[in-house]
């Protein structure tokens, strides 16, 4: 099949209400998938002779804090035979974010899921080695969350000079 829309409809027919919506923007099709069936949908897309999405190109997440559901996990699949891209989206609540891992379908999801865990604190059920990957292992917090500060240094003016001066860690005589 060389038409993403037809593929999206095929998946919708197969999984019914597990596919929450089909969105189109600038010619890209994104399927919003129920979190529990993401692994099955990936399996279907990979193995079905009509779709053959044999390559997980990218896996990442977006934080919509303070909206709820807070996170959106993004999967970009590619079919080498049909030369098509298809996006999958999974909405994850902010409270105890946890979704199934797709490592069993696409082995290269391993590091990408570790990155999402590291940066957003979303845990992946069934992941073989869920550790931090980019940040130090004893880091606190998840940097790409929207409520995580960017870490600017506060500007020192005359009215808050002493207050900030006390917190500076430079050497003193």
């Amino acid at each position, binding site marked *: 099949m060389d038409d993403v829309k037809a593929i999206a409809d095929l998946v919708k027919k197969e999984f019914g209400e597990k596919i929450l919506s089909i969105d189109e*923007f*600038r010619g*890209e099709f*994104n399927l919003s998938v129920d979190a529990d069936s993401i692994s099955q949908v990936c399996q279907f897309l990979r193995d079905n002779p009509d779709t053959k999405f*044999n*390559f*997980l*190109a*990218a896996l*990442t997440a*977006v*934080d919509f804090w303070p909206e709820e559901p807070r996170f959106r996990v*993004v999967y*970009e699949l*590619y079919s*080498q035979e049909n*030369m098509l*891209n298809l*996006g999958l989206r999974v909405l994850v609540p902010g409270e105890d974010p946890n979704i199934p891992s797709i490592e069993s379908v*696409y*082995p*290269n999801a*391993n*590091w990408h899921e570790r*990155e999402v865990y590291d*940066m957003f604190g979303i845990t992946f059920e069934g992941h*073989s*080695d869920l*550790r*931090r*990957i*980019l*940040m*130090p*292992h*004893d880091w606190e917090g998840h*940097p*790409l969350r929207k409520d*995580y500060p*960017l870490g600017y240094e506060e500007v020192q003016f005359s009215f808050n000079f002493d207050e900030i001066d006390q917190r500076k860690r430079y050497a003193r005589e």
Partner: protein
Amino acid sequence: MLQPEMELTVDELKHLVSNRAIEGDTMVLNMGPQHPSTHGVLRLLLELDGEKIITCIPDIGYLHSGIEKNMEAKSFEKVLVMTDRMDYLNNLGNNLAYCLAIEKLVDLDVPPRAQVIRVLLTELQRITSHLVFLGTHALDLAAMSVFLYCFREREIILDIFEMCSGQRMMTSYFRPGGLWRDVPEGFEEVVQNFLDIFPARIQQYEDLLSNNPLYLDRTKGIGVIPTDMALSWGATGPPLRASGIAYDVRKAQPYSGYEQYEFDIPTGENGDVYDRYIVRMEEMRQSVRIVQQALDNIPEGPFRSDNRKFVPPPRSELAHSMEAVIHHFKLWTEGFTAPKGEVYVPVESPKGLLGCYLVSDGGSNPYRVHFRTPSFANMQILPKISIGCLVADLVAIISSLDPVLGDVDR
């Protein structure tokens, strides 16, 4: 407050190494992060049985600089500057991926002249990236002279970039809607001069390496990526093509007018270090072909879009057009806004598939930018292919994957 440094416990790593390491039968060795052959700050934990590698655990993140987080706090125009700093050997390629994503997001057309110059410069950039690969790869295998020759030719191309953008490496030359400015006078001539000498130089490098028995011993049959494993483990670019899969985004999903150019996708058969080297050598020749075709057909016309909502007006207009002053002021203070939506744009960087995922919430800053970087994805295959190798071969394998740690860690 500085926290006392905590160490990883044995239990946390237990599932990664074999039982023999726990019992002290094999040796666990730390390689890197400061090690010349890891091409940056890659750290590897190796479990060794004598000289043989049993387990290899990459530990990345030493060059993590929070680029994606920083991008969220900058306007669309300013984000472009940070893309240069990811894969610092492929600055123009990163610029291109980001510009294409923006142009798709706001639905902006790029004039043909800009498209051709973009292709021309990114192909030159591909050559520089492969030259750095070749030089450092050969240097890791103790062939010093290749390194010097490669950097000599790379310098010519960097001079061309400097001519165009004023910068050798951090160019930021491609802007949403076209180019920063037109190519300077004499540009065609210097590119033509380079194209005239370069094919013979590629032959020189090949004469030094391709039939060198020492080089062949170190590379043939080493670090084989089996064809069925390559794509499922996320390898793209030369490592994938060396394993026999002809996947190249320039052919599969052409962007920026790549469908107009004639070029081949070189592939290997065995997927070993030697094939990855051969594939890159051939890619340099193909890039020369593309650059020549682009150079012969640079169309006349504007070098950037005249959609004033996204592209600043030329300075000459500011003197006599109130509208131009307003556009100029708006663009350089607030920046432009993009409609709410998300796009994903894949391009072929020298190292593989570079994907830019961009989310906008309707404001003038990107809500989220994610770069699917080829070095990060290709690095994941390293533990799989290095098992059973000697430590000396691991050096060859790392350099054949050609990671740039700025690209891995971002």
